[in-house]
């Protein structure tokens, strides 16, 4: 491996000024003169912007003229310009992996701006270390793997639906996996949507139908991801189809029941004797043990809740010849192969009862904004009449508590802004003004964050409609034990006066948090999350849909709070990103993987357990047990290479001799 087709190393060093970014602090001439003295260095050059075309040409030309074996560019970061200089290296006719970068800007001139001399010395060290590595670099050939021409979207909210539709429309067969019995997500629980106030169901239902009808989408509701194996281009995903107890017409046909299967008639629910709270209505309306969430569900197939079903069989009887109900149904595991996957796992409402001071779940007339959505919605449990849970009366004075649990650095809150609660609270204010004559919304806020297109205008409109804004966070709420009215205590910080406002109802704009199974699902896909649990994008600005796991992308709120327009936009971005490898047909893997030096490998297998990416296994080869690397899975982290007691693992591009040479170059200060 380490054996080199080049007899001796001939290194070219190129120093970048980056305008004054580097040259303003570091003495380039001094570094240049020093570099000439480093062993193996045959050319040293410098330029104002190495990344420019003339700068790149310098590299290519020098390779040809001086027959160089390795290139060192001392400039910014590999993250920014490694691809640039690799291309320049290749243009000179050298294998692009014979390039090494020394960061003398971000980690040097920028941070040591006021110590030019020390910075110059540090730059000399950095160049010397890079030369040491460049002298030992080898030719590497990236591997290509074919990509399975199917995709998966996990989560069937508006984000997941949009991503699936885009992929399907691009001609890619897509599995849409949704854990609940219907797609639609949170958006189907909303009444109207800001800032245009269109009816949420009206714009969502057609999309739900599109998803259901699309030939390229295989809709798997009531299904969860159980296991994920493989890597970009070749994921094997095991799914658990939870026992639904009701057959679709297709499933019925497969069982030989001609013309059978669920038609969504609902006769079963009629006769079912078990009554349970409907989670879609946040427990404010009942459902049976055999149920649908709401009339617009997609697919329109009933579901048996086996946790509450008493197996009386009444539904089976009422279903009759359709024979759709199978009370002995069991969970089913299936495995599908996909090339790329998108996670669109959405969010849950933070359990706001943890903020004891606002009395949610303790005072009847304190509700959350999501409950408000259901109560104000014509298809909701009260037919769209907003009423006080305590007495069924119509509330007239309604307080909205913004940032309820958001922007809260205590251990009973979330530090981030939940991003849509300002806007939907403005919407709610509008809705009560519109629906309830004489009603006054009081909005307790710290800042109104109306940053989107037409959002500030919406704020203007609601203010004009008569909503009252009080700039102060609510300190606590107390309940009048007799009237069940609520006293909202706060400070009007603009007046500088404490307020005790008696209202009929309080709506908490509760914070949101990652949905319950996000943690489990993201682990299966090897996706990281930030401290607050939202899934981590590959780069916050330049790669907001990607993740650090190749082939896995993010859409919607699971990546961080965002409203519907942003969710849909990100979903389209994620769908586009997820389709690229599929359209290309193959993906190139960086050749930074481990290589087993089979003659040294003792087959002990201990590395297999060390690898965090399950890339290693033991195989029989020529009568011996040796380790085998699945290159596409290996991330080149080096855990195994550092660990192997026999030194039998060679980490390409980060091999032990290369790293040792770098350490020597640093510690020995250039002396051999």
């Amino acid at each position, binding site marked *: 491996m380490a054996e080199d087709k080049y007899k001796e190393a001939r290194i070219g060093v190129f120093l970048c000024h980056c305008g004054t970014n580097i040259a303003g602090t570091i003495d380039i001439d001094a570094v240049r003169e020093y570099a000439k003295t480093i062993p193996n260095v045959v050319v040293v050059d410098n330029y104002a912007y190495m990344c420019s075309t003339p700068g790149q040409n310098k590299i290519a030309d020098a390779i040809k003229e001086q027959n160089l074996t390795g290139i060192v560019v001392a400039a910014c970061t590999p993250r920014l310009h490694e691809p640039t200089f690799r291309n320049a290296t290749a243009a000179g006719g050298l294998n692009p992996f014979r390039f090494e970068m020394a960061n003398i800007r971000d980690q040097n001139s920028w941070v040591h701006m006021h110590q030019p001399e020390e910075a110059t010395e540090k730059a000399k060290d950095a160049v010397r270390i890079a030369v040491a590595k460049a002298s030992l670099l080898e030719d590497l050939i990236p591997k290509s793997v074919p990509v399975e021409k199917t995709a998966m979207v996990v989560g069937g909210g508006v984000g997941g639906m949009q991503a699936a539709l885009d992929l399907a429309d691009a001609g890619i067969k897509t599995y849409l996996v949704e854990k609940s019995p219907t797609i639609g997500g949170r958006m189907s629980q909303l009444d109207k949507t800001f800032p245009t106030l269109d009816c949420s169901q009206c714009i969502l239902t057609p999309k739900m139908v599109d998803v259901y009808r699309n030939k390229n989408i295989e809709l798997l509701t009531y299904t969860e991801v159980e296991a994920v194996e493989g890597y970009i281009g070749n994921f094997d995903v095991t799914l658990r189809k939870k026992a639904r107890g009701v057959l679709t017409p297709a499933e019925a046909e497969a069982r030989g029941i001609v013309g059978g299967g669920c038609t969504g008639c609902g006769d079963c629910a009629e006769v079912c004797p078990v009554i349970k709270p409907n989670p879609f209505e946040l427990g404010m309306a009942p459902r049976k043990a055999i149920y649908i969430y709401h009339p617009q569900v997609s697919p329109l197939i009933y579901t048996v809740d086996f946790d509450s079903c008493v197996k009386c069989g009444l539904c089976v009887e009422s279903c009759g010849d359709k024979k759709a109900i199978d009370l002995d149904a069991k969970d089913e595991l299936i495995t599908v192969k996909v090339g790329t996957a998108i996670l669109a796992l959405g969010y849950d409402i933070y359990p706001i009862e943890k903020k004891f001071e606002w009395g949610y779940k303790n005072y009847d007339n304190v509700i959350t904004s999501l409950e408000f959505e259901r109560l104000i919605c014509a298809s909701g449990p009260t037919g769209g009449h907003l009423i006080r849970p305590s007495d069924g009366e119509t509330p007239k004075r309604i307080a909205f508590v913004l940032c309820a649990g958001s922007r809260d650095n205590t251990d009973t809150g979330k530090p981030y802004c939940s991003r849509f609660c300002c806007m939907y609270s403005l919407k709610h204010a509008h809705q009560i003004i519109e629906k309830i004559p004489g009603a006054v919304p009081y909005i307790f806020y710290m800042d109104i964050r109306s940053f989107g297109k037409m959002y500030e205008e919406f704020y203007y409109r609601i203010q004009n409609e008569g909503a009252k804004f009080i700039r*102060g966070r609510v300190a606590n709420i107390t309940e009048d034990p007799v009237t069940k009215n609520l006293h909202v205590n706060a*400070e009007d910080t603009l007046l500088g006066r404490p307020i005790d406002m008696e209202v009929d109802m309080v709506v908490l704009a509760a914070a949101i948090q990652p949905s319950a199974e996000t943690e489990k699902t993201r682990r299966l896909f090897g996706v990281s999350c930030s401290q607050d649990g939202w899934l981590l994008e590959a780069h916050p600005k330049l790669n907001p849909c990607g993740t650090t796991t190749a082939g896995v992308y993010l859409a919607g709120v699971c990546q961080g709070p965002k409203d519907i327009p942003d969710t849909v936009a990100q979903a389209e971005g994620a769908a586009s990103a997820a389709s690229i490898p599929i359209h290309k047909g193959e993906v190139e893997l960086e050749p930074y993987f481990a290589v087993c030096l089979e003659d040294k490998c003792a087959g002990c297998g201990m590395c297999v357990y060390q690898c965090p990416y399950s890339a290693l296994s033991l195989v029989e080869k020529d009568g011996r047990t040796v380790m085998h690397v699945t290159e596409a899975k290996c991330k080149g982290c080096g855990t195994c290479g550092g660990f192997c007691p026999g030194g039998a693992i060679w980490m390409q591009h980060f091999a032990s001799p290369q790293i040792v040479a770098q350490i020597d170059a640093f510690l020995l200060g250039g002396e051999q």
Partner: protein
Amino acid sequence: MAVKKDYKDQKLAEKLRDRKYYIPDSNPEFLKEVEKIGQTPAHMCYQCGTCTGSCPSAPRSSYRIRLFMRKAVLGLEEEALTDPDLWLCTTCYSCTDRCPRDLAPTDAIMAMRNLAFKRDIVPRNFLQTVQLIYKSGHGVPNNDANRAARKKLGLDEEPETTHKYPEYLPGIQKILDHYKLKENADRILAEGA
């Protein structure tokens, strides 16, 4: 610095006093000291008013805990320490329990009071408590009526404290003397009398 107008009429001068905030009005060290003594990062206050909204003293006075936080952040030492409202905090800790920024406004107030005391600004009753403890070990000492009641209850006339064991008093006095507390209390009370 506020514009000096040198008006002869004192009443007018006060009425028309320049009320703008100028950077030189502020002492940045003040914030640092408040944070150090109070052990709370007061500069993280985002002025939400949860504290004032929780405060039992606010509805019945001009005391606004939020404004004290603001003054700490802006370094308005003079204004904060000379404000008689500084002494209206009952230390109920409601604000501290509810502050969404996880600050302890109560402890910031305590810190400002400590700093006020360094400038001899302190209500008399606080100092009288110091004197009583120096003398007897108790802020609320025993008296004859109470002794009689204790006896009736079958308790010792003097409780098992420094009252019954005055030999512990010198230790207490040494601690107070270490901080010159008694000395300062006597002096400030005498000056104020």
